[in-house]
């Protein structure tokens, strides 16, 4: 909502500072997003007198003027305006001045004659579209007087961020009401220049149909249009708006159209009630009817677009057809034109949801729809109409034809709410005195009907506050006007909640810590992307096709991040992400969500160091396997890493595959290393607590076995065979070395295992260990056909 500082001043009858207004409004809940200076380029423009006008020697249409700006120098100015007259006063922009359009004036030659500044038209000053000639000033001010001092145009526009619950702040009067409370003053509607005061009789209340000034007015859709006021004015003169009216509408960012349209816009920005003026001569019937659109009905709206209407929409129609979409936009045909002499003025309440639906269906937002959607004052039509008639009479003349009508088929009243001071204390934490509560409620325009007997107060809320429907709404008003900062700020005793931390949070934290310890950086990527699997869930309204689906895996976006790092010439990349994937669920139900963790590695295994001549090998599968095992232990402790189909998988008990690790495809530059990665499901089951095992106190004995292993026998199988044959003294078996090459027959490899023996209660004797090793070798030879490698 754009607010004019001068307009506020006209209500409050006191000078205001925009910055002060902004901080007062912020404290009351309306943030001012920006303060824009209007007419910023006029500060250097002064009033000047043209002393003499001579023809330009080289151009028929240009004149040479001697301009007196009070400085004592007579400036030579080349002027092209036909209306420049010696002895008259004009706005003068001297050399160096920058005009609203951004033009900075320089001393220059125009067709051979020096020009030192410019006499300005209204348009050049940003004061309207008038460009037929320079702006002749009727003022007593001496030459040299700043233009803005004589023509008090200086104003600022405050861009107020109005929350959707406060439609009243979409009119200056609503903003003024807040400020009046803040200043502790009163306010009234600004006087209309040229008016003797409002002169409209009270509209005649009717049901669903009535006639005013020969126009039949009817409500056929009382749901979409519960109330409709109309007035007919005859003999108006449509023309340019007077300066004060033009300044008002331009100050809030509207374009000045003519005195009729500007008057209705002025009323809208003053009282938050959109209005519409029709040319009576163009109304068939003449009639104005609020009804549903008919099937197949069309309308060319004010913006010149032909639109199909839907029967769900409320329209305004004459006897022939629709002439406007209710609350959204009027039609082009019945628009006020320069030839218009007779007006029908509409001031209606349109039901917010209906306006919102029509606006969205037509893709057509307007200042009017914005206001109707949020809810205008159902009970303020008579005041609004009176105001509009007063402004139009003062600026365009004309007289009312008959008494205005007020169709209100189902008369209603603003709600009455009961407020308990005890509830105020319960919610706000301190007692607020009864007289203060009353003062606050009166300030927002409510009527306090009773005193606090029975512990509650009856409050009639004002019609411009559709947000006030329940007791808690009044509690908020009390808090707001009391001032949030005036409540105590205390940490009072509290009871802790019964719910423990969500277990998944502790699991997430442990996974993060574990992978950070592995040297990986955590990233957060978008869960939105292209379709990446048969279970992908599609977005109904994506931002773009590339982000049209929910991810079903984390790795693809991690690979994209590796590619992004390559693009930045980073070769060593180690990333992980802990996030959610989405898998199609039952029809009509939310997708299944899985918590997953994924990691990628590429580039050097360790940072290069001079002791290794600056070389470090790149990460390979064995780095991946170790990382995968570490991640699996964190994410799914019950799982086992196994080999399947040439890659590693993590299997949950029961055999379900919950994770995979493998080499990844990527769009790699030639200098990049291979990328490997893993992804694993996070098991939501709380982790078991590790139990202490007594540390060994007796020494271990180790034996290394170097075996000749034929193809097909795996380290895992052999390790298992050794473990089971080794007996209870064999504590651990690790793969020590793999050897292929000379001395090893083709199709074979050498595998060395280190066996560690220990007895918990004594020092082992060599004899015991020897016996176990002999048994291991026997089993390997007899069951696996594997012999010790000849050394």
């Amino acid at each position, binding site marked *: 909502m754009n607010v004019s500082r001068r307009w506020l001043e006209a209500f409050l009858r006191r000078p205001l500072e925009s910055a002060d207004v902004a901080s007062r409004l912020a404290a009351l809940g309306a943030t001012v997003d920006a303060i824009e200076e209007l007419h910023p380029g006029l500060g250097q423009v002064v009033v000047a007198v043209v002393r003499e006008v001579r023809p330009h020697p080289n151009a028929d249409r240009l004149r040479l003027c001697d301009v007196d700006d009070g400085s004592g120098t007579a400036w030579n100015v080349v002027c092209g305006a036909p209306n420049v007259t010696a002895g008259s006063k004009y706005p003068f922009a001297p050399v160096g001045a920058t005009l609203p359009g951004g033009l900075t004036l320089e001393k220059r030659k125009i067709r051979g004659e020096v020009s030192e500044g410019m006499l300005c038209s209204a348009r050049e000053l940003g004061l309207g579209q008038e460009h037929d000639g320079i702006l002749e000033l009727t003022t007593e001010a001496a030459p040299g007087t700043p233009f803005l001092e004589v023509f008090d145009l200086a104003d600022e526009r405050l861009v107020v961020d109005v929350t959707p619950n406060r439609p009243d702040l979409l009119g200056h009067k609503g903003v003024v009401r807040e400020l009046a409370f803040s200043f502790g003053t009163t306010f009234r509607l600004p006087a209309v220049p040229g008016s003797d005061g409002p002169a409209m009789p009270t509209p005649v209340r009717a049901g669903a149909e009535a006639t005013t000034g020969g126009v039949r007015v009817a409500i056929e859709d009382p749901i979409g249009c519960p109330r409709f006021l109309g007035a007919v004015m005859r003999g108006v003169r449509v023309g340019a708006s007077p300066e004060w009216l033009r300044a008002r509408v331009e100050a809030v960012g509207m374009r000045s159209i003519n005195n009729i349209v500007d008057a209705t816009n002025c009323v809208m920005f003053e009282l938050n009630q959109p209005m519409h003026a029709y040319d009576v001569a163009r109304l068939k019937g003449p009639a104005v009817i609020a009804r549903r659109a008919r099937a197949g009905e069309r309308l060319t709206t004010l913006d010149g677009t032909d639109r199909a209407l839907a029967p769900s929409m409320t329209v305004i129609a004459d006897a022939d057809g629709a002439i406007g979409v209710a609350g959204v936009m009027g039609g082009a045909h019945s628009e006020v034109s320069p030839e218009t002499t007779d007006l029908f003025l509409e001031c209606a309440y349109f039901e917010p949801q209906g306006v919102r639906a029509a606006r969205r269906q037509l893709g057509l937002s307007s200042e009017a729809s914005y206001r109707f959607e949020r809810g205008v004052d159902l009970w303020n039509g008579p005041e609004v109409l009176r105001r509009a008639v007063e402004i139009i009479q003062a600026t365009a003349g004309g007289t009312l034809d008959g008494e205005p009508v007020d169709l209100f088929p189902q008369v209603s009243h603003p709600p009455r709410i009961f407020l308990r001071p005890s509830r105020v204390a*319960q919610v706000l934490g301190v007692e607020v005195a009864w007289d203060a509560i009353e003062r606050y409620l009166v300030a927002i325009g409510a009527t306090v009907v009773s005193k606090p007997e029975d512990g509650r107060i009856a409050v009639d809320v004002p019609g411009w506050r559709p947000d006030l429907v329940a007791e808690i709404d009044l509690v908020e008003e009390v808090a707001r006007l009391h001032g949030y900062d005036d409540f105590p700020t205390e940490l009072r005793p509290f009871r802790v909640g019964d719910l423990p931390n969500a277990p998944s949070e502790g699991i997430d934290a442990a996974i993060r810590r574990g992978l950070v310890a592995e040297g990986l950086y955590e990233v957060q990527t978008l869960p939105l992307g292209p379709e990446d699997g048969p279970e992908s869930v599609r977005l109904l309204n994506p931002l773009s096709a590339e982000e049209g689906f929910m991810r079903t895996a984390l790795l693809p976006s991690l690979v994209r991040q590796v590619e992004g790092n390559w693009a930045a010439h980073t070769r060593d990349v180690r990333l992980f992400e802990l996030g959610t994937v989405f898998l199609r669920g039952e029809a009509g139900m939310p997708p299944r969500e899985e918590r997953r963790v994924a990691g990628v590695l590429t580039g050097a295994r360790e940072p290069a160091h001079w002791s290794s001549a600056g070389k470090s090998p790149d990460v390979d599968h064995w780095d991946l396997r170790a990382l995968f095992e570490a991640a699996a232990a964190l994410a799914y402790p019950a799982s086992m890493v196994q080999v399947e189909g040439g890659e590693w998988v993590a299997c949950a008990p029961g055999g379900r595959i919950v994770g995979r690790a493998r080499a990844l495809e990527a769009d790699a530059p030639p200098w990049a290393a291979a990328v490997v990665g893993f992804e694993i499901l996070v098991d939501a089951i709380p982790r078991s607590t590790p139990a202490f095992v007594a540390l060994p106190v007796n020494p271990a004995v180790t034996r290394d076995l170097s075996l000749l292993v034929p193809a097909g026998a795996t380290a895992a199988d052999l390790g298992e065979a050794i473990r089971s044959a080794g007996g209870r003294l064999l504590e651990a078996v690790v793969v020590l070395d793999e050897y292929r090459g000379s001395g090893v027959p083709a199709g074979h490899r050498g595998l060395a295992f280190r066996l560690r023996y220990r007895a918990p209660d004594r020092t082992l004797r060599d004899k015991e260990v020897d016996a176990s090793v002999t048994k291991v070798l026997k089993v390997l030879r007899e069951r696996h056909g594997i012999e010790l490698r000849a050394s």
Partner: protein
Amino acid sequence: MAESHPQSLLDALRPRLAAVAELDAGALEAEQIAVLGRKSGALTALLRSLATLPPEERRAVGAAANELRQAFEAAFVARSDALVSDAATATVAQRDLTMPGRRRWVGAEHPVTKVVDEICEIFHGLGFNRAVGPEAETEWMNFGALNFPADHPAMDMHDTFYLDVGGDARPGDGKAVLLRTHTSPVQIRTMMEGPPPYRVVIPGVVYRKDPFDPSHAPVFAQIEGLAVDEGISFVDLKGTLLHFARQFFSTSTKVRFRPSFFPFTEPSAEMDVSCDLCGGSGCSACKGTGWMEILGCGMVHPKVLENCGVDAERYTGFAFGMGPQRIAMQRYGIPDIRLLYEGDMRFLDQMGRAR
């Protein structure tokens, strides 16, 4: 040789004892062999020959010879230690200690994770436990239960992504499935679980249909808090959030509360904190105002309590929500939110070093 008298041999060896302290490593070894060598050491031989002496002489010479042997042994050990220590000193002197050490890769949590954890920890200290919930929700959970009026301009504040999940639900009917626009549905889930008191913080990812720009992302983190019990008031809300601000920013941080609007709280407020960087005098981070918007909050709307089966006459409570991305950006001076989503190792490394 046999004729040399043992006493004169002892006299001849004594001066060599003093010289041990001057020997280099090679000479030391040779002298050890020459004096105490098992086969041909002079003193060893002398001690061996004692047996041939008459008893009186053997006692006198034997005592002297043993004493001398101990003296030599001590001198050799001392000299050997001194030589080792000299060698070490010499090696250290040669080493260029300005050469870089051998590093290993380090990792780090995402800066937003750090901020989230820090915030949750502060509230944990105030008795708030962590709660989480799904990211895809029904319209009712995301809007209806939270007192968003159906088809109202308040919905325009939340540009919502809807999911195509089949079935006959349509946006606007309450059953349609969407990506949650705030973590507030977890408030509802928490309150449906059992009776008050509730004291939870809810970290999570939320979605708004906003294209990426320097300060907006379609997916971002949020932390929500909820406290409901008998006797909880606006005063507690203010006290709790001031405590949080002082813990998170600094003990001198000031806060201010401005009225605002959220459908699920009333009264509703925005909390500003005095600018961390300039301390309130005005700088570019706070756009000259001295204040930074940090969170939205309010007293839980009675309708929301009722929607969860909580007696709104007996229980009151407060809720708050904030954006860890924005807080991280302010804290670390990150100019563009997209940096938080790009996984650039250089950025993550910088942030890993940040406090």
